């Protein structure tokens, strides 16, 4: 960004807070937030893989953390962010082909991403607990 007089006098386009919040706009922001969350979540994956490579003692410590309530909460959020970002990303890939850009489709895509990501995440965790023999 320059500091010239001309640039300073240019009109700025309205920023986010000027607009009434809309679902599709919130989903755009959610896609970025879930993307950042995934980037942070990969630190958990790296930690877990490095622990396995390091040996049984390190792995036991890391496993204990992931089995704790804060550990599970982090994993739950990470899995939701992954699934949310994936569904949102598929939506973007469809848009890249030129389809689904009409008003009805973008609303349907937005709701499909929200509901789909919550359903799939809950399903995943129910399956996980079921496989561990919790019920």
């Amino acid at each position, binding site marked *: *960004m320059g500091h010239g007089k001309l640039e300073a006098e240019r009109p700025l386009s309205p920023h986010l807070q000027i607009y009434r919040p809309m679902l599709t706009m919130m989903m755009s922001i959610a896609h*970025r937030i879930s*993307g*950042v969350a*995934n*980037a942070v979540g*990969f*630190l958990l*994956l*790296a930690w877990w*893989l*490095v622990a*396995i*490579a390091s040996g*049984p003692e390190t*792995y*036991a410590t890391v496993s204990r953390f992931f089995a704790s309530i804060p550990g599970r909460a982090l994993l739950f959020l990470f*899995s939701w962010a*992954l699934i949310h970002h*994936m569904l949102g*990303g*598929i939506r*973007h*890939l469809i848009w*890249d082909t030129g389809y689904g850009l009409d008003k009805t489709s973008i609303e349907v895509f937005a709701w499909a991403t929200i509901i789909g990501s919550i359903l799939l995440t809950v399903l*995943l965790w129910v*399956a*996980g607990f079921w*496989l*561990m*023999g919790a019920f």
Partner: protein
Amino acid sequence: MATPLARARGLGSAHKGTETFLRQRVTAVANIPLVIFLVLAIVTHLGASYDEMRSFLAKPVVAIALLALIISAAIHMRIGLKEIIEDYVHGESARVAAILLVTFYAVGIGLACTLAIVKISLGS
């Protein structure tokens, strides 16, 4: 503004054309099956012992899929994080510093996971 040659080349002001855009799409497509594989692999091995987990990860097909995921995800996250910084961090030095930081972060994650998978695969 653009010369006819520049228009024909279609590379734009950064001289890279749509390279980054395409790379983000290619890694996005790759990430879909790879992330599904990772999530299913983890869920089906909940409660597995250390040795079971390690021998599963050492299988060539599993190791290749994980390496592919790590490389694809590291590239994808670096492009995505850089784009967010370019949109919201306006000071020149803060922007450069933030981009450097996320680049090192993505490379660090990629290297750590790659080394771990290779070490597990080679069983040392």
